[in-house]
């Protein structure tokens, strides 16, 4: 599914070259749930942008679903993002003036063929994140956690090969964060490939596997021995407080 071989990325600002990724290699198979970890500034987002076909590596190979991404032009990359990738951002990035429904349907606008049942698809996606009853709400009428779930529904609507989430819980409180992680868990159980970026080990341990970046290289790549379960954590969290 994802093949990354000796990937390098060097930013050059004002004649000054800053190597960020210095030869990163790993494979991710279909249906895997992987967390990419590392301290701030190690290049997690940089890597994520390359995986998401928003940015190109300086050197190395990136294969997505059998396609060598490096050889594609800008339009082909746009099309690839539309068909194969679902993004979830730390800052949600919803259209402020559009309803949840319209936000979720946004990727369909850029699809080659607009599906006839676009509305039902959006409703299904919203149902999958537990927001079927909020479809007419605008972002400012939703909590942060709900906004992030709308963003996940938007990532789901095109039925992408991978979901890429860069610090999806970074802007959320613990409970909302766990709710988001519970959705990822469910999506993974349904067979989706999920790549999650986080600097928080507690969040990373919800995944099956952790790739640790350090100094522009993969420092560690291993399976999670004791996976956390967001549903269990939500229950214990709920038991400790009055339910609201």
């Amino acid at each position: 599914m994802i093949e990354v071989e000796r990937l390098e990325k060097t930013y050059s600002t004002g004649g000054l070259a800053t190597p960020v990724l210095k030869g990163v290699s790993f494979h991710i198979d279909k249906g895997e749930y992987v967390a990419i970890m590392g301290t701030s500034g190690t290049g997690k987002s940089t890597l994520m942008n390359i995986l998401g076909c928003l940015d190109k590596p300086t050197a190395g190979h990136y294969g997505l679903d059998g396609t060598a991404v490096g050889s594609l032009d800008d339009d082909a990359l746009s099309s690839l993002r539309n068909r194969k990738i679902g993004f979830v951002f730390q800052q949600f990035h919803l259209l402020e003036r559009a309803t949840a429904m319209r936000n979720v349907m946004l990727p369909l606008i850029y699809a080659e063929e607009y599906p006839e049942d676009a509305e039902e698809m959006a409703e299904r996606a919203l149902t999958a994140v537990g927001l079927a009853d909020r479809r007419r709400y605008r972002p400012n009428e939703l909590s942060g956690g709900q906004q992030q779930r709308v963003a996940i529904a938007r990532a789901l609507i095109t039925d992408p090969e991978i979901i890429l989430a860069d610090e999806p819980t970074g802007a959320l409180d613990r409970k909302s964060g766990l709710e988001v992680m519970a959705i990822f868990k469910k999506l993974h159980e349904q067979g989706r490939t999920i790549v999650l970026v986080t600097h928080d080990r507690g969040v990373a341990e919800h995944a099956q596997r952790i790739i640790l970046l350090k100094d522009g290289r993969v420092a560690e790549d291993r399976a999670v021995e004791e996976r956390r379960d967001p549903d269990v954590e939500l229950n214990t969290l709920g038991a400790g407080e009055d339910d609201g």
Partner: protein
Amino acid sequence: MRTQRIVWQGIQSLGTNKTRTFFMMAGTIVGIAALIVVVAFGKGIETKIMEKVETFGPRAIMLIAGGGKNAPPDMTVTTLTLDDAQAIREQVEDVEIVTPMAWRFRINMKYKDNQNEAVLWGVEPSWHEAWSWYAVEGDGITDQDIATMARVCVIGQTIKRELFGNSNPVGESIYVNKVRLTVKGVLEKRGTSPMGGDFDNRIIVPITTAMRRLLNVDYVGAIRIITKDTELMPQQIKKIRALIHARHHITPPEEDDFRIASPVLIARMARGTSRTLSILLIALAGLSLLVGGVVLMNILLISVAEREKEIGLRRAVGATRGDIHLQFLAESLTVTCIGMFAGCGLGVLITLILKQATKVPITLSWEPFVLSLTFALMVGLFFGVQPARKAAALNPVEALR
């Protein structure tokens, strides 16, 4: 279709901030409205000029006593005479008719108990032909009338109505300046002049009768000359001017005691004021479209900066550079097209109001609407391209950061 969906994204973003959208289209509205008004106005003026020329007589030259450019005829000027008319007849070539006229405004007339005030013209028989204006009841002025200084008159339709009502005036006698005249005919109806005067409130008498019996003058008010060939008119006017200069002993820096009117001069005069107005309106239209375009461009540029995240997101979910370009271009084109419709509406409204208020025969036509559409599209494209390019060129990674 994908293109339609993307265009629709651009149009939709206009609805989200109506004030912003209004400012984006304000320039187009004013510009297009001015354009509609100026074309309608210009057409109206042109129609009016044609009308004026038609009433004046396309082949006519008027030699009018009294100087000045456009002053009303001066009744106190005594220098234009029947001999001047005769001199023109003899010395200016290729003129068909030379007919002198003595006139007086606001002259009183009476029939039984009815009174009326009208314009009196003393004329020669050729007057009828020179104005293509004939008697429809009874007869016109004849050579016999001139020779005998006959106490006769031919009256206009308004006088007939005012003095005689429904009864037949021909053969009846009326008093004009205490002189008894027999009505020998009634002139055909001419209606109102382009200036709003009543052509039909007019009485004509033999010029000899007018000069000797009614007005007691030895001069005339004007001489009407009909040319055989309008091409010759400029030379003929020159010739007439020189002739009268000589006859009246005027050497050019000295002020003339007459003026000459011709269709060309009439048209030029009528255009004179309207042209300045037209140029002003055209300048306003151009300036509004230009300023409006710049405002539009700047608002769009600001909005590109404000919507960087939105643009980045659209790119992330699959929009190509071309899609973003198209979205912003659709936005600016929609703005100018809506602005065009509003401007056309406003322009038509102003035109109709002006028509009511000024009585200028303002004429609406389809040409300015086609022109407006062209301008609107041009402004939308020209000033929309740069913001659209800027939006499309955004790096999605940086836009999303």
